[in-house]
């Protein structure tokens, strides 16, 4: 089994405490206060070196831990035996309140993780912008008398930011990486064959952005160099014509 070093971020004293309980494999319903307290304080020492802003909050809990620890050192009240627990007349365990707090906190910490999963599951479903309806007329405004909420404004703004984030990049950045001269040469030969072996120079440059056009041109140069195509014109200033090389006319695999 791989040894996993997990970078743990503590979200406060209770979080640190839960972490320690987990790491020390302590039964949360029967916390050994001495051990936990010393571990906790050891961690705080490290934190103090780093001047944690929330140090005071950690210290408050440290004081609580020490208080509980000292209460538990007090003589234990007489216990009558096993049947004692049936009349539910227990002394309060000094740890009780702490455990309740920890369990309550843990509940929401786990809920936070579940929510994170919900968000991840939601994020795989993409939506689209609403269509621009200005063609159909003017969009309605909020009804006259309605009291509006500034938080709706924020919601609307955030939604818009999200849309912006999901905007599709320009054609170039998608195609650039994939468009190779090699492929384009094949395309050009294919076009030529479709057109009966000859076409106008311009016909090879109808579609595409700048990158596309440059690649087309390079491909054409390469084809000329290989004598796969011939470029010619009837006279000066006439239309440039491209004709496929003889050996290519009946041969699919150049």
């Amino acid at each position: 089994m791989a040894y996993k070093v997990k970078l743990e971020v503590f979200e406060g004293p209770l979080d640190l405490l839960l972490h320690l309980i987990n790491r020390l494999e302590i039964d949360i319903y029967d916390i050994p206060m001495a051990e936990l307290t010393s571990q906790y304080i050891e961690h705080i020492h490290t934190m103090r070196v780093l001047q944690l802003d929330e140090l005071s909050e950690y210290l408050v809990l440290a004081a609580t831990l020490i208080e509980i620890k000292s209460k538990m050192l007090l003589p234990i009240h007489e216990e009558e035996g096993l049947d004692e627990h049936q009349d539910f007349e227990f002394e309060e365990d000094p740890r009780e309140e702490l455990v309740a707090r920890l369990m309550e906190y843990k509940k929401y910490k786990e809920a936070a993780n579940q929510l994170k999963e919900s968000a991840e599951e939601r994020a795989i479903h993409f939506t689209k912008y609403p269509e621009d309806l200005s063609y159909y007329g003017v969009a309605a405004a909020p009804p006259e008398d309605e009291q509006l909420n500034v938080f709706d404004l924020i919601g609307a703004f955030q939604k818009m930011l999200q849309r912006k984030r999901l905007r599709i990049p320009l054609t170039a950045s998608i195609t650039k990486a994939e468009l190779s001269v090699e492929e384009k040469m094949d395309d050009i030969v294919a076009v030529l064959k479709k057109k009966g072996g000859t076409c106008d120079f311009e016909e090879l440059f109808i579609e595409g952005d700048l990158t596309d056009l440059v690649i087309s041109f390079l491909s054409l140069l390469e084809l000329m160099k290989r004598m796969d195509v011939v470029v010619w014109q009837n006279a000066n200033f006439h239309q440039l014509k491209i004709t496929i090389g003889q050996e290519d006319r009946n041969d699919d695999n150049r």
Partner: protein
Amino acid sequence: MTIDSAMLGRIESLLFVAGDDGLAPDQIATIIDTTKGEAERLLDQLQTNYEGRMDAGITMRKYGGRYRLVTKGEYASDIAKMLENPSPKLMTQASMEVLAIIAYKQPVTRVEIDDLRGVKSEGPLQTLVAKGLVMEKGRLEGSGRPILYGTTELFLDRFGLESLDGLPPLAEVEEGEQEDTDLFMTKFQEAFNMEEDEGGIMD
């Protein structure tokens, strides 16, 4: 059946136009001039069709009471390839914790959140408000009249929830007692610690 087909087409076109704003069943009903119940039946039908059709890249989801068209989950990686910045940044653990507390306990004051977490939550709380996930829902009567916080419509959308009832149930704290009483008792005896673990501790 063919009547339904045309109706489904109408609804699809409306949902398509609405995009991520989505439409509530009663809005749809008004536009296509039918009852809300009938609109909901048609929406169910539409959903079934999307899920059943292999050649459908989109399907329908209801978030916060409004239906919207979304892409099917299996195409997420294709779409991610196409977009400039596809994956949303995850929120910090602190923000998630505060959000969870607000979602489950709303309306709730900042002090309650602080107490629960054992740490000040002002920063994450403001972030959540600024992100439109959390909003003020009035004020608590009494001294200081502290602000009460709750979640927004956008929260439901971002977390894929139909309503707050759709929140996953909070883990039951009393699991040791109620679900596994025997196991609990066994541990109990092993520990020779018969005192107080019984009751009040957990809630």
